[in-house]
């Protein structure tokens, strides 16, 4: 009899507990903010093994320019920054030299060996000299054009168009010679997959044109005729590759042929060997503010890495450690 009472008592407690659970879940449970269960958490990728970091930030300075988009260095290691309406020029120690009013919103910038400044506005290319005089310009005759990068050789100007996912090859006078990267299964060219306005190009040590096919996480090398000479790719969330819709966003090439890459999403700067193999880390995600993107990068003659950080409105210079 006593046992029955205990069992009934426990059963009643269970019923009351169920009522309590339902009421609490319905009336109180709603107060919990619904976190995004599908949220893509990148926290695990922000920690980087310190032994892999081979660079140190040695200098940084603020720059006063709206919509800063591009950075480059000349043969004397002067630093050029382009953005809305102007170009700022500093020497390698961050001493201000001059500013050039351009009245255009530049998305890309490249300085030639004779210090001509090639400026990529949205739909045209402008050439300015070091003294701030406009020397020439030409339009890219293609609808939806968005010029995001320029690369130079002694006789050629290569212009990357993210809107049309193509590279134009001009001579130094702005005459179109050919287009590079159009899908061609016979030549083994898959075409560029560029989901966002980050489409970077650079000239390699053998004068080949390196293109970041960011949607494929791939680097492709072309000769000036548009023939695919080489490529490497690595899709990975880890340090050895690139992830997201389209990475790396920008790159530069070191004199030894290694690539300096910048990424958005998991914001980090890395060095990849000429073969594509991961080499080291320049800057980890923790060294950037949340939401950082559009990190343009250049390399000077001392192998210093010059980084444009639009989020902090700053030029940040990294130097290799003597390990």
């Amino acid at each position: 009899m006593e046992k029955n009472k205990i069992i009934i008592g426990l059963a009643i407690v269970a019923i009351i507990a169920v009522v309590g659970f339902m009421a609490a879940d319905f009336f109180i449970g709603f107060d919990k903010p619904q976190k995004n269960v599908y949220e893509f958490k990148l926290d695990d990728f922000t920690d980087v093994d310190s032994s892999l970091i081979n660079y140190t930030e040695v200098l940084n300075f603020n720059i006063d320019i709206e919509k800063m988009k591009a950075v480059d260095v000349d043969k004397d290691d002067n630093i050029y920054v382009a953005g809305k309406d102007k170009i700022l020029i500093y020497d390698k120690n961050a001493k201000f030299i001059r500013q050039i009013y351009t009245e255009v919103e530049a998305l890309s910038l490249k300085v030639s060996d004779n210090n001509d400044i090639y400026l990529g506005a949205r739909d045209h290319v402008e050439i300015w000299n070091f003294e701030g005089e406009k020397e020439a310009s030409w339009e890219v005759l293609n609808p939806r054009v968005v010029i995001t990068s320029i690369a130079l050789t002694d006789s050629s100007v290569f212009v990357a168009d993210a809107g049309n996912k193509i590279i134009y090859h001009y001579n130094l006078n702005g005459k179109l010679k050919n287009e590079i990267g159009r899908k061609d299964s016979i030549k083994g060219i898959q075409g560029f997959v560029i989901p966002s306005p980050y489409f970077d190009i650079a000239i390699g040590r053998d004068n080949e044109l390196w293109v970041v096919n960011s949607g494929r996480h791939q680097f492709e090398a072309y000769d000036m005729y548009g023939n695919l000479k080489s490529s490497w790719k690595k899709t990975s969330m880890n340090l050895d590759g690139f992830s997201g819709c389209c990475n790396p966003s920008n790159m530069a090439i070191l004199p030894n042929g290694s690539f300096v890459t910048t990424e958005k999403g998991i914001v980090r700067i890395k060095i990849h060997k000429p073969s594509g193999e991961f080499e080291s880390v320049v800057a980890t995600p923790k060294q950037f503010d949340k939401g950082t993107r559009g990190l343009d990068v250049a390399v000077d003659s001392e192998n210093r890495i010059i980084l444009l950080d639009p989020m902090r409105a700053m030029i940040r210079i990294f130097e290799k450690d003597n390990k």
Partner: protein
Amino acid sequence: MRYSRTKGYIIEIVLLFTILLSFQTMDVQAQRFPKPEFESGHVQPDTQIALPRSDILEYFDVFVLIVALSVVSWLVLKKRSRRGVFWVSIFSILYFGFYREGCVCSVGSLQNIALALFNPGYKIPLTVIAFFVIPLIFSLFFGRVFCAGVCPLGAIQDIFAWKPMQMKSWLQKLLGLIPYIYFGLAILYAATSTDFIICRYDPFIGIYRLDADFLMFLLGGIFLLTSIFIARPYCRFFCPYGVLLNLFSRVSKNHMTITPSKCIQCKLCENSCPFGAIEEPNMVKIKEPRKNTVRRFLVFTAIIPALIIVGVYVGSQFHQNLAMVHPKVRLAQNIMDLKNNPEIQEDSEYIEPLEIEAFRSAGKSDQQLFTEAKEIIGDFHTGGMILGGFLGLVFGLTLASLSVFKYRTDYEPNKGECFSCARCMDYCPIEEKVGSSE
């Protein structure tokens, strides 16, 4: 002999279950969107989409419901067969439970009806109306035969009632108030298009679908475990549809009786009902003084309206708490909180709730949202008062029923609470005597 009969039953069940499952595989592949072309050569697999149940099968469900109710009514009222009711219960578990995955069930259809009545934009399917109305009609004529063996929620608990124990009458009455509260809340939240809380907290749906989160499985497990000792806890102390069945069954014309003939007061059935739904004879026939009757009448005349008024007042006071469950009201409150305390967002731990993110991207203004939320709170004000008044009435009538003296000469099932499971019939010797005399 007994063994072979049982074996036969098992084979029949397996066959039936196999046939039912074969219907379930008739999903048709359908491609709703053109497939993307992957440059890598990846071939996207075909998407398997289960089509909605065809109309003919929905009407077939209604047909099965009617047949099952008719069979149970016949088994209870004519055949007086507990075994027959048990096998119908097994069928209901398999068909309405595992095969139909517990939906649409009559219990949940209550909310569809409430939503359809208060929201003209909601077009209620005829089959849902049928699932709601048909068990009530049967209840009106034959008692709660739906509960006896057709409701999959009741059936699964019933087969777990292995060691049922009797509860104190007052405790049963007290816990018996929960379904009325649940009923009122379910109607309120369905009528205001807030939520279908009966479905949300259906403890057996996860078992029938073999898919639920851990807490819902736990809830179902607690109910089934409790069912072993306290028979059908969900039906007795939770089921909101049971509130209506209870009312309809009270006035049923042909409710089952424990004995097929005259009760001989053998008391064999006295403890046979695991639900405590058998009312004992009350032979005291001393006529109550008229003065007492009049006084009691006056007391209840005053108490019941007073409880209703208190209920209305309490309901009106808590309407905002009730309304906070509505997603739009909750969203408005969250946005209001952020406006009043903008520093919340500066906290590094702060994560913007999905609802706010979605609202911001929808492009509606805060003012629009606040206006809509205010209207909803207004609905809850009215609804809260009605709910409070209803619960006040229920408490008052329950109180009255406890103090009203009823004369009974025989052991009788309480028509409202009896599930017509036919267990008590097995204990009545009268049937056997009639049988032997024949």
